[in-house]
């Protein structure tokens, strides 16, 4: 059986193997040529390193167990694990040294390498001097633990990046460089070099004798030649090396390092092409330049202003329910001010803006009633670029003030009348890039002349609708009630102010010449129908719209139905017919009485001494799709001396096709008024016509009101 003591002595002796190898590689340094298979060993460094960390720290912990000296078997465990840790430390250091040959350079590597060596050396020494005083051992163990942690930290820095560990608690404010200030080299090119090149070309590790961590180094170039030559791709080694095939030994960055992206390649090439300047600003490049376009995306078009920001308290104070004052973007001193809410516009509040005279860059007062307000204060806005004054009732004096604002780039004054004098003033605004002149009453020659004077300005005259002829919407008819008792007011309206409304009250369709023109509400005192149409210049006349109104002069004193209405559609019985409430078409059961199997036979009586009605109106529903048809016959009889006499009758025109549900009014004039009672009979259609899906079945009659007038 394997004895613990033999394991221990084996491990102690291998320890010396590692020490020897470590010494060789460390001292030989870069002159060593390592075979490929050793690279595999080197690359196992990140796996191996976990063993010594755990084993060594565990072993160190045993030194701290109280009374460990009196428990040799426990101390033994600690010592063995510590010894194993020492061995793994040796292997890890070896692997690390091999790996370091491959790709890593930099200050952080130096720290990691030497800390690793210290840990290895330290733990070996501690192991062999483990019999020393407990106090000394404990102090050394703390130091060693510290060294292990430091080594690990630097190592992690190599793999994950220097700030990896502390990044979450460090403030990560990235300084925003405004486009106007961005330098081609400093802000666009250098970050790429820093990320992909400088780790091998800097103080302490000047590969190819090229230093890239300061400008002088770049200007000087390396051992093979100049780093860059303005505009010369062939002689600029930068361009040459980054464009070599990846497998080429001289390809940069080296094969196993992070490579340049296509965008970065393009940026570096464009930089050299554009002169490889170390000072030039990005904005000096033409806007079409590819480098400019690529880089400007990075800076998000954050336009920079040189003036100071306004006081934050002032800005807060200026923000009210009717006014918004906002920076163009966070940290920009430039302000965008807008007014909202026509009814709540306080003109005196404009003077508050003095506080931010210097900062206002965009200003909108669109739709605010500015008539008679002195706009000279706008001249104090030294940096005003965009002004929106659509529909603000500007006059010539105000327009003159506006035309003198020479910092303006965008001006919107749509919806304001512009006279010829103002037009001449506007024509002087050469700084304008965009001008909005829709709905300003300018004639075609006017438009041409201003476009000619401001040839570089984009002018929008908008849509004037000329030559487009649409049909007008029908006017709206409003009336308080459909059935009224004394008189009724009818109001007609149209949303287009210039529209003329013509109407008739005799049921005929109005025309644009002879029919009455609506000017004021119409009062009616009878039962009838109003038909109205709208007309306007440059529009086609509207479709006719109509509405009925019913006058109810006499209310019967008695009424009864001979046959009950259909049980599904009985509403409140006969009383429904005299409630003076016109039913809406869809509510069949609530306000309409329906008859199918039996006719409607209604008997009504009137006060003895009162006038007897001469006119009868019956309001019916037609909806062929729902089998509701005009009655086949309507008759009205009067009881005279105990005998029923025919006083009026009609056969309504039968439907020939299905139409949507609609209400119809049948009017009758009675032959005489010598009756005691009236009997009104509506006979439903016995057989639905052939064209109807329910042909042959019975039709329905629906009735909601019966109205009597003198």
């Amino acid at each position, binding site marked *: 059986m394997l004895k613990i003591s033999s394991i221990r002595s084996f491990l102690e002796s291998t320890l010396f193997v590692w020490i020897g190898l470590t010494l060789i590689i460390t001292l030989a340094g870069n002159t060593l040529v390592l075979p490929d298979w050793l690279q595999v060993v080197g690359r196992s460094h990140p796996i191996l390193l976990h063993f010594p960390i755990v084993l060594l720290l565990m072993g160190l912990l045993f030194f701290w167990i109280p009374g460990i000296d009196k428990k040799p078997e426990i101390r033994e465990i600690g010592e063995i694990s510590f010894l194993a840790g020492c061995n793994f430390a040796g292997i890890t250091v070896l692997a690390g040294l091999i790996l370091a040959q491959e790709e890593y350079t930099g200050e952080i590597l130096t720290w990691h390498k030497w800390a690793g060596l210290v840990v290895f050396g330290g733990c070996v020494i501690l192991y062999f001097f483990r019999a020393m005083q407990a106090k000394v051992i404990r102090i050394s163990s703390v130091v060693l633990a510290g060294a292990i942690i430091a080594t690990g930290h630097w190592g992690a820095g190599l793999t994950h990046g220097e700030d990896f560990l502390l990044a979450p608690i460090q403030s990560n404010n990235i300084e925003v460089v405004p486009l106007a200030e961005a330098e081609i080299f400093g802000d666009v090119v250098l970050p790429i070099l820093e990320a992909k090149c400088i780790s091998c070309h800097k103080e302490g590790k000047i590969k190819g004798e090229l230093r890239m961590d300061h400008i002088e180094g770049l200007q000087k170039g390396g051992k093979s030649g100049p780093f860059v030559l303005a505009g010369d791709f062939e002689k600029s080694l930068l361009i040459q090396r980054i464009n070599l095939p990846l497998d080429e030994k001289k390809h940069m960055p080296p094969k196993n390092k992070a490579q340049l992206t296509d965008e970065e390649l393009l940026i570096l090439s464009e930089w050299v092409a554009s002169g490889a300047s170390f000072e030039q600003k990005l904005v000096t490049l033409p806007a079409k330049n590819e480098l400019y376009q690529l880089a400007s995306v990075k800076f998000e078009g954050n336009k920079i202003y040189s003036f100071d920001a306004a006081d934050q308290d002032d800005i807060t104070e200026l923000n009210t329910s009717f006014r918004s004052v906002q920076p163009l973007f*966070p940290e920009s001193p430039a302000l965008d001010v807008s007014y909202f809410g026509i009814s709540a516009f306080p003109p005196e509040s404009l003077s508050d803006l003095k506080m931010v005279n210097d900062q206002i860059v965009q200003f909108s007062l669109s739709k605010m009633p500015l008539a008679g307000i002195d706009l000279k204060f706008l001249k104090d806005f030294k940096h005003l670029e965009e002004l929106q004054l659509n*529909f603000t009732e500007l006059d010539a004096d105000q327009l003159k003030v506006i035309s003198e604002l020479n910092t303006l780039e965008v001006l919107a004054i749509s919806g304001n009348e512009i006279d010829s004098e103002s037009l001449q003033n506007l024509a002087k605004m050469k700084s304008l890039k965009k001008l909005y002149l829709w709905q300003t009453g300018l004639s075609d020659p006017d438009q041409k002349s201003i476009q000619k004077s401001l040839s570089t300005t984009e002018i929008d005259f908008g*849509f004037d609708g000329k030559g487009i002829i649409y049909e007008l919407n029908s006017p709206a008819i409003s009336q308080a009630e459909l059935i009224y008792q004394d008189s009724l007011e009818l109001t007609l309206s149209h949303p287009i102010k210039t529209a003329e409304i013509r109407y008739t009250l005799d049921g005929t369709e109005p025309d644009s010449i002879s029919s009455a023109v609506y000017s004021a509400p119409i009062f009616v005192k009878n039962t009838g129908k109003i038909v109205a149409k709208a007309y306007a210049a440059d529009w086609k006349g509207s479709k006719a719209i109509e509405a009925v109104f019913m006058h109810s002069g006499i209310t019967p004193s008695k009424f009864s139905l001979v046959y009950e209405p259909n049980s599904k559609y009985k509403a409140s019985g006969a009383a429904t017919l005299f409630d003076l409430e016109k039913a809406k078409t869809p509510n069949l059961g609530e306000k309409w009485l329906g008859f199918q199997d039996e006719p409607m036979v209604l008997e009504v009586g009137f006060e003895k001494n009162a006038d007897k009605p001469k006119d009868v109106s019956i309001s019916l529903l037609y909806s062929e799709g729902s089998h509701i048809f005009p009655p086949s016959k309507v008759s009205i009889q009067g009881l005279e001396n105990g005998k029923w006499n025919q006083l009026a009758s009609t056969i309504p025109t039968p439907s020939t096709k299905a139409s949507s549900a609609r209400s119809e009014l049948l009017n009758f004039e009675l032959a005489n008024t010598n009756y005691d009672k009236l009997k009104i009979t509506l006979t439903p259609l016995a057989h639905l016509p052939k064209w109807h899906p329910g042909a042959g079945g019975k039709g329905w009659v629906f009735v909601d009101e019966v109205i009597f007038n003198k």
Partner: protein
Amino acid sequence: MEKEILEEGLNHNRRKFLSRLSLGVGSLALGSLLVPDLFSGKAGAEEAMMNALPHFAPKAKRIIYLFQNGAPSQLESFDYKPLLNKRMGEELPESIRGTQRLTGMTAGQSSFPLVGSHYKFNQYGESRAWISEVFPHTAGIVDDICIVKSMHTDAINHDPALTFFQTGAQVGNRPSMGSWLSYGLGSENSNLPAFSVLLSRGRGNGQGVYSKLWSNGFLEATHQGVQFSNSEDPVLYLKDPESMSREERRKMIDQIAAMNDLSMQQFNDPEISAKVKQYEMAYRMQTAVPEMTDISKEPESIIKLYGPDCLVPGTYAANCLLARKLSESGVRFVQLYHQGWDQHGNLPNEMRLQAEDVDQASAALITDLKQRGLLDETLVIWGGEFGRTNYCQGKIVVDNYGRDHHPRAFSIWMAGGGVKSGMVYGETDEFGYNITENPVHVHDFQATVLHLMGIDHERMTYKHLGRRYRLTDVSGKVVKDLIA
């Protein structure tokens, strides 16, 4: 020795474990009392993030989203595929369809006959974009818009697809895009809600819209979309009751606010302060909304621009006009929904009617914003929740067919607000079935929209139920090619 081991074991009983555990929990609690933000991540991270909004200079200040609810067919609007006419009635090749799942409506179909557009296509503008004959007005503004032909989505049915487009997730508990923008950027005009919603219905086969689409989700209730209706009261419950004066109303709201402040101090529930803000907003809206819905001051040319329908409340044209008025008044996000685009059958007839209702007004909105100098700062989006299949649903009858839902490729357009104009982006295969170039996923689209508003979609988040949420969920890339 054995006894000791046994005792040791017995001593480690549950009571002891729990009492020790309580010590640990107690010290945690003590720790968190001493350092209140110990367990809440970076102190005030949410606030710091909000203060930094917008993250960079926005290209657009406001959005008008013309949502075409029901999914208009891309093959009869912007994605011209003559091959489908040439191979009319032939079977959709398996190689093109691939593994695409189908809806329950056509999954059982034994054949998938290709069907070409009933309408003619023509090229327009400097971009030479193909547009079908039923969108003549849109063709007229083609150089002001950017048509994206390579949209694709994850969902295949209306509800999840709509919800996905609006909230970034297919299940309906997340804040809508408008709510996110209200949360991130607030309202420009404190008299109107930052997020307004307008509905209209076309003459084609319709699909429902529901208030979850403009829900604030887990954000504060003030970020919910406010629906404007076409009734006498455009915003419900906004009018004062008869005989109540403005002053009385003011007093009442101040009193309620004072009482709410008391309970706020007591309970510190953010819902209470949200309530106070809502009362205040409603009070201000009482004067601001009538101004909005009054069209009597609009010039006659505007009526001709949008078409006479814009005078009929509740139509798409009237909503477009109202949308412009709201947007012009600083409403951050105006969302329109126009129903009726679900042409499973009778497409040639219905789509013409649908296009008639929306084409003129959509184009008018662009022209109108442009002539006021507002198009540069207003982003307008037109599109549905997915596309439609290149094969016929059911049998092809002469001059009549229908199309099923198709999430793999469809078209939308955008205009203004920093979007490149006069551009057609993305391409589909000859069958109009798969994207061949520059795909834009719904999350990419959302990321791009937020980017135009000056927001980094990855940085605008809200912590809810222990995790941070964002509009684009966990994906989405800004499509830089679309940005001017």
